[in-house]
């Protein structure tokens, strides 16, 4: 009887499934067990790989390496150009920029920030490094959010040496912003813009109007909303910064009836998940007593200076046409570390015990990537996008992307060179992935051609210092 009961209810199997759920909810506790178990199992393929031949040294032609260096330099220059010189020339008169990399975008609170989107950014600079900066943080001429101070407000428990946090405008605790919208038929409406709820259709919503009657007749979406200066309030952002475009929520006009506007939302032009670089600002008068400001290009490489690159070997696992590789490194491999080969990002690694790791190449991965696209046509603005590979064959990946609406919605991506954006502390922005083109594809797809190699070879594992 007891045996029959045991057979009817396989407690051990259900216990193992429950254990798996616990591992997924508390990954920090169980991750070492997984690393040890899978790492132990990979020792056999690692031993067998010794017969696969001697790993080839990175052997790209110097000309190709020089081209890659030039492309990366061009990317940095254009990011600087569009985030500072073109985007915010007025700010440069009164402030000194500090270009910061974004290490992570985070959702805080239930359902995330306004519009259900991430509402916080972690920068690659510490609170101490940005202590003398103003609160507002921008990208180009767009106001993104407010820099926190260590020990205060949302950062009350953060020490000064921790990575600085930026509350985006859609964060539930972010302050409201005074703004203005210029109406197409002349005149303007002033308003207060505050974070929307997580279930709202956009990250920001208009809270108060200076003329509610005219606001109720506002029925045209896509109008630019910009900040206005409130000199009497300290710490307010400067005037003229762009918040986003209006989105009208209500009923469209029917025959014989007017449109009914229920709410007006503001859609920021940049997707928080896709942000790789933002700009903090020091007031020029303040900076006289502060340390000399670093040049934007130096600041852009701030994160790179914190990186350590470990030498590694990469072997194709059987069936590696599907993009799975075994990695052996001379140091521990953190989860999500970028693996670089001949200056090209092969993919990201899952760290295992015994100095081993498993790498999924970019075309084979299905993770969401933050990416930077450097348009091939000179002078075009670099695009910060998020994307997910939806199909691949022979090193060519089809990427489904979402990006910014800075130049308008439903915009097609120009052809250009694809680099990693900010994908966590161990996969920094600016690692070359491949060439992207979108001709003949749906508007939200691009085809990325990567340089695929086979056989055992040397590589480097990027271990970032952004995990402070």
């Amino acid at each position, binding site marked *: 009887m007891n045996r029959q009961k045991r057979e009817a209810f396989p407690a*051990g199997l259900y216990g193992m*499934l429950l254990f798996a759920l616990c591992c997924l909810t508390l990954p920090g506790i169980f991750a070492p067990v997984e690393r040890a178990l899978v790492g132990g199992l990979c020792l056999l393929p690692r031993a067998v790989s010794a017969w696969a031949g001697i790993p080839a040294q990175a052997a790209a032609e110097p000309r190709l390496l020089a081209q890659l260096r030039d492309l990366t330099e061009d990317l940095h220059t254009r990011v600087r150009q569009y985030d500072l010189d073109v985007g915010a020339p007025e700010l440069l008169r009164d402030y000194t920029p500090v270009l910061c990399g974004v290490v992570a975008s985070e959702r805080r609170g239930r359902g995330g920030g306004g519009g259900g989107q991430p509402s916080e950014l972690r920068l690659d600079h510490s609170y101490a490094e940005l202590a003398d900066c103003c609160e507002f943080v921008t990208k180009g001429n767009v106001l993104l959010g407010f820099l926190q101070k260590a020990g205060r407000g949302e950062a009350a428990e953060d020490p000064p040496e921790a990575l600085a946090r930026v509350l985006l405008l859609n964060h539930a605790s972010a302050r409201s912003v005074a703004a203005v919208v210029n109406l197409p038929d002349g005149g303007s409406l002033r308003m207060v813009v505050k974070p929307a709820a997580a279930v709202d259709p956009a990250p920001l919503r208009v809270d108060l109007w200076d003329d509610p009657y005219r606001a109720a007749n506002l029925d045209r979406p896509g109008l630019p909303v910009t900040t206005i200066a409130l000199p009497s309030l300290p710490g307010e952002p400067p005037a003229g910064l762009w918040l986003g475009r209006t989105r009208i929520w209500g009923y469209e006009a029917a025959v014989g009836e007017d449109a009914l506007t229920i709410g007006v939302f503001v859609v920021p032009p940049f997707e928080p998940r896709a942000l790789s670089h933002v700009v903090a600002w020091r007031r020029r008068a303040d900076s006289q007593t502060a340390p000399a400001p670093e040049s934007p290009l130096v600041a852009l490489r701030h994160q790179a200076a914190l990186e350590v690159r470990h030498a590694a070997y990469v072997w194709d696992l059987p*069936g590696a046409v599907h993009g799975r590789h075994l990695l052996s490194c001379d140091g521990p491999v953190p989860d999500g570390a970028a693996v670089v080969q001949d200056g090209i990002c092969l993919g990201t690694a899952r760290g295992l015990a015994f100095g081993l790791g498993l790498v999924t190449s970019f075309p084979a991965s299905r993770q969401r990537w933050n990416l930077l696209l450097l348009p091939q046509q000179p002078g075009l603005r670099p695009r910060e996008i998020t994307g997910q590979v939806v199909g691949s064959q022979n090193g060519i990946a089809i990427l489904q992307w979402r990006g910014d609406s800075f130049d308008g919605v439903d915009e097609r991506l120009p052809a250009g060179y694809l680099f990693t954006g900010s994908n966590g502390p161990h996969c920094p922005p600016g690692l070359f992935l491949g060439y992207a083109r979108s001709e003949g594809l749906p508007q939200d797809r691009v085809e990325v051609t990567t340089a695929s190699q086979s056989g055992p070879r040397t590589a480097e594992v990027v271990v970032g210092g952004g995990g402070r």
Partner: protein
Amino acid sequence: MKRWLLWFLFAPQFFLLAGLWRDLGLPPLDVGVLLCMFLAMFAQRSALPWLLLGAAAGRAIVDEAGLPVQLLVLGIPVAVLLPLRSWFFGQRWIWQAGAAALCAIAIPKLAGLFGRVFQQPSQSASLDLVSVIWAALLLPPLLSVLRWLPPLVAFEEEA
């Protein structure tokens, strides 16, 4: 002890051997489906959790998602098929082919579901009907051979 050593040493490597098999241009073999069928229909019930762990760890070598996701992806079809074992115990080919096809559909679907929920998407989440057909045709005879060989033979439940 020896049988467990053999299981954890060799069962995960089946996934890599399947990769070699495919590199040779032969029809795709889904080792996840094969091991699911063995666990659900023939393995000793008391050994199931640890057998599942070995199989999931093997799948974690070749798949982007982590070990806990693999435990769920392989474990749920086993948990669903296990109560039906008494019906299947006649070991008719048609049952085995049906179970293989069911697993070949369920595993990618579960991989897609858990990949979305736990943000661990992987390439194995795409359902390939050709693989389903090959699973139904190839895996039952292959399993009947493997069940007589180590490490599977040591875990076969006696009728």
